[in-house]
C-alpha cells in the first residue's frame, strides 16, 4: 500500500459474445461484484472492484457483449454509450479492456478498429490463450500490438492466468493518463464495414498463423447435435431430463422451505397476541413471501442446467434447432430459453427475455410467457384432478389423471404459440428480426464460473422478485383481512372482507362459467400467487390446513362442485393471470403499465372464454 490514496479508476470490459468476458470479469473481481440495472433501462449492469498491488482501487464494468459499436439492441446501446462516455448516470471509463477469444480473432479485430476510433486508452486481453496454444495457433504478439497500437495481455480467465499482468497494464495506462486521441467514431456504412474487414484480414494474415491442430471436436459434436432428426430428439430428451430434475431434485428442498415458512408462521402466531399485526406478519408477510421463495430450489435447478448448457455452447444450438418451430408462431429462436424458464416460474422467464434484441419480439415473448404451465399451477391442478378425475387407466397403459395433467401442459404451450401467432398477424405485422447467431466452439464449463453465475441468478431472483412481491402480498392480505368479521359472525372472516365483497359482487359475472360465490371469493387472495387459491378455498370452505392435507378439501369440493365446475376451474387456471408478481415484473421489465394491463385483460378474457366453453360443453354432456 502506498501512503497516498490513489483515486479509483474505472475500467470497462468490451468484447464479442462468447469471448469469455464474464469469466474474465469473475477472475478479476472475484466475489466483489454487484448486479443492478442501468438507469432507466432493463439492461443488467455488472460492476466489481479490484485492488492493484499499488493500492489503487479499480472499478470494473462488464459491458454487454457486442460485435460492433453500431448498437442494435438495448444491451448494445448501453455498450456503445458506455464506451463513448455518453451513458447517463455513468462516469466514462478511464481504460477499455477489449476481451477477445484468442482462437477467434477475425470479428473482434474489426471491433478493435472501431474501439480505436473512440480514442480511449485500451488493453487487448487475448483470452482462452491456452486453447490457442493447444491448437498450435501462432500469434505474433509484439507485431499485433504494434499494428493495433495498444498493449496485449494473454489470459486464461478460467484458471486466473494473466490477471496480474492485465491489472498492471491497465494501471500503466492510467498513470500515462488521459485520452489517447479525440473520438472519431462514426456509425460505419456498408462500405466502411467492408474496408474494416479487409484491414482485419490483412492484420490477421500478417501476425496470426492458422492453427496446426484446429478444433475438430466442435464439428464432430455438431454433426450429431445439429442433425435434423437426432438433434431434435436429443434436445427433447435434454428437456425431459431437465424437467425431471427440476421437479424431483428440488422437491425435498422446496418441501423443507414450505415447512420452514409454516413453522415460522406458527411460531410467530404462538408468541404474539392475536390481532392485526400478527395476522399481517403470518398471513401477509411470512406466507406471502414464503409462497414465492419456495420456488427458489426449482429455479436454481433450472438455471443450473441453463448455465451449464450455455457455457458448453449448446444454447445457441438449441435456438438454432427451435428457430423454425418457434418462428412459425412468430417467435424468435432466442425466445426459447425464456419460455423454458417459465415452466418453473414466469418471473425468471420474463427477466430472461432481455436476450432478445428486438422490442416487439421481446414483448411478444413476455406476453405469452405466463401461459407456460408454471409450477405454482401444479398444486391447483393436483387438487382439482384428485377431486374430479377418476383414477383409471386409458387404453391399458395411460393413466387418466396423468393424461389430464399432460393435456393442461399442452394446452398452455399451444395457446402461447397461438397467442403469439395471432399477435404477429393482427397487431405487429412485419417479419421477425433476422436470425443471425454465432455457434460458438464447444467448451467444457468451468465449475467455479457455473456456481458463481448460479449464485448471482438466485440473488437477482430473490432481490427483484422480493421487492415486487412484497407490496403485492400486502395488498392482497389487506383485501382479504379488512374489514374484520363482525361480532357473532358465523361465516369465515374472509366473507366480510373487501375480498369477500368483491367476490360476492363478481359472482353473477362468473356464474355462466359455473363458479359459485365461494370460488369467486377464493380467486381474490389467489391473485397473490396461483397456489394460494388452494389455501383460499380451504378458508372459504372453513377447512383448516388445506395445504398440508388436500384430501379433506378435495372431498369437500366433490360434494359442493359439479364435475363441469371442476373442469371449468381447471380451464380457468390454464389462462388466468392469477399472479400479482408476474404482473409486477412485466411492469418493471417493460417500464410501463400498458403491457401489464394488456396482459391482465387478454389472459382474463381467454380464461373466461375457456371456462365458459368447458362448463357449457360439460353440462351439455350431462356432467353439470
Amino acid at each position, binding site marked *: 500500500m502506498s501512503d497516498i490514496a490513489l483515486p479509483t479508476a474505472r475500467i470497462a470490459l468490451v468484447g464479442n459474445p462468447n469471448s469469455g468476458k464474464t469469466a474474465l470479469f469473475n477472475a478479476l473481481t472475484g466475489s466483489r461484484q454487484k448486479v443492478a440495472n442501468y438507469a432507466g433501462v432493463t439492461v443488467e449492469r455488472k460492476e466489481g472492484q479490484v485492488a492493484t498491488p499499488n493500492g489503487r482501487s479499480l472499478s470494473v464494468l462488464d459491458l454487454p457483449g457486442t460485435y460492433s459499436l453500431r448498437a442494435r439492441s438495448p444491451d448494445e446501446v448501453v455498450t456503445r454509450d458506455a464506451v463513448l462516455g455518453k451513458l447517463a448516470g455513468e462516469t466514462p471509463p478511464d481504460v477499455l479492456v477489449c476481451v477477445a477469444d484468442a482462437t477467434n480473432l477475425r470479428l473482434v479485430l474489426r471491433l478493435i478498429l472501431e474501439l480505436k476510433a473512440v480514442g480511449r486508452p485500451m488493453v487487448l486481453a487475448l483470452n482462452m490463450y491456452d486453447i490457442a496454444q493447444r491448437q498450435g495457433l501462432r500469434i505474433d504478439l509484439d507485431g499485433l500490438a504494434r499494428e493495433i497500437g495498444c498493449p496485449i495481455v494473454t489470459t486464461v480467465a478460467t484458471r486466473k492466468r494473466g490477471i496480474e499482468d492485465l491489472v498492471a497494464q491497465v494501471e500503466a495506462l492510467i498513470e500515462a493518463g488521459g485520452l489517447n486521441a479525440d473520438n472519431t467514431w462514426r456509425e460505419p456504412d456498408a462500405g466502411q464495414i*467492408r474496408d474494416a474487414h479487409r484491414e482485419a484480414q490483412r492484420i490477421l494474415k500478417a501476425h496470426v498463423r492458422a492453427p496446426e491442430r484446429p478444433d475438430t471436436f466442435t464439428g464432430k459434436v455438431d454433426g450429431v447435435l445439429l442433425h435434423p432428426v437426432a438433434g431434435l430428439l436429443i434436445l427433447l430428451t435434454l428437456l425431459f431430463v431437465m424437467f425431471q430434475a427440476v421437479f424431483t431434485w428440488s422437491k425435498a428442498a422446496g418441501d423443507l422451505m414450505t415447512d420452514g415458512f409454516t413453522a415460522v408462521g406458527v411460531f410467530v402466531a404462538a408468541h404474539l397476541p392475536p390481532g392485526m399485526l400478527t395476522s399481517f406478519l403470518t398471513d401477509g408477510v411470512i406466507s406471502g413471501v414464503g409462497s414465492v421463495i419456495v420456488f427458489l430450489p426449482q429455479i436454481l435447478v433450472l438455471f443450473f442446467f441453463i448455465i451449464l448448457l450455455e457455457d458448453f455452447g449448446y444454447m445457441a444450438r438449441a435456438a438454432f434447432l427451435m428457430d423454425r418451430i418457434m418462428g412459425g408462431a412468430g417467435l424468435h429462436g432466442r425466445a426459447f430459453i425464456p419460455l423454458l424458464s417459465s415452466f418453473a416460474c414466469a418471473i425468471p422467464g420474463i427477466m430472461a427475455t432481455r436476450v432478445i434484441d428486438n422490442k416487439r419480439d421481446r414483448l411478444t415473448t413476455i406476453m405469452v410467457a405466463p401461459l407456460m404451465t408454471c409450477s405454482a399451477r401444479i398444486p391447483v391442478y393436483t387438487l382439482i384432478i384428485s377431486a374430479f378425475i377418476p383414477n383409471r387407466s386409458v387404453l391399458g397403459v395411460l393413466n387418466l389423471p396423468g393424461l389430464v395433467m399432460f393435456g393442461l401442459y399442452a394446452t398452455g404451450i399451444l395457446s402461447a404459440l397461438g397467442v403469439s401467432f395471432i399477435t404477429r398477424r393482427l397487431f405487429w405485422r412485419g*417479419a421477425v428480426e433476422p436470425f443471425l447467431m454465432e455457434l460458438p466452439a464447444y467448451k467444457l464449463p468451468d465449475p467455479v464460473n457455473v456456481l458463481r453465475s448460479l449464485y448471482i441468478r438466485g440473488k437477482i431472483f430473490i432481490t427483484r422478485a422480493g421487492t415486487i412481491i412484497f407490496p403485492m402480498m400486502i395488498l392482497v392480505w389487506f383485501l382479504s383481512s379488512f374489514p374484520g368479521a363482525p361480532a357473532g359472525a358465523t361465516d369465515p372472516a374472509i366473507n366480510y372482507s373487501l375480498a369477500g365483497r368483491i367476490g360476492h359482487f363478481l359472482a353473477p359475472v362468473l356464474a355462466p362459467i359455473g363458479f359459485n360465490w365461494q370460488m369467486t371469493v377464493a380467486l381474490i387472495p389467489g391473485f397473490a400467487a396461483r397456489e394460494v387459491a388452494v389455501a383460499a378455498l380451504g378458508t372459504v370452505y372453513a377447512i383448516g390446513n388445506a395445504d398440508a392435507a388436500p384430501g379433506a378439501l378435495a372431498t369437500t369440493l366433490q360434494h359442493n362442485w359439479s364435475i363441469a365446475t371442476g373442469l371449468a376451474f381447471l380451464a380457468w387456471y390454464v389462462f388466468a393471470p392469477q399472479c400479482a408478481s408476474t404482473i409486477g415484473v412485466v411492469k418493471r421489465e417493460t417500464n410501463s403499465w400498458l403491457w401489464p394491463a394488456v396482459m391482465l385483460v387478454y389472459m382474463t378474457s381467454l380464461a373466461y372464454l375457456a371456462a365458459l366453453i368447458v362448463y357449457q360443453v360439460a353440462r351439455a354432456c350431462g356432467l353439470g
Partner: protein
Amino acid sequence: MLADPGKDAASADAAAVRLSAARPGDKGVIVDVRAESHPGDHGVDVSELQRRLLEFGFVEGARIEVLHEGAIWRDPIAVRLDDMRIGLRRRDAEDVWVQLDPR
C-alpha cells in the same frame, strides 16, 4: 426465392448462387453481399440486414461452407464462415452470393 433476372447479370455469368439456395456440403467463396431482396420482410430494412451480414463476416472473399440445415423446410442453415460457425435463416441469406467450388 426467384432471382430477378435484370439484377443478376453480374452473378449469372459464373456459377454464383444465393446462399439461401445452397445445401449442406456446398462450399465456395462469397462474391457479393447485396441489399435488395424482400424489403420490409426481415424486420429491419435491407441495408441494415446487409450491414449485419457484413459485420458477422459475410464479406466478399470469405470462404463459406454449408454444414447443416434444420428439419423443417431445411431451415435455418449452419455455415462455416472462415473460422467461425454461424446459424442463419435462408430468407436472410438470399442476398449473399457464393461462387461454389467445383464438386
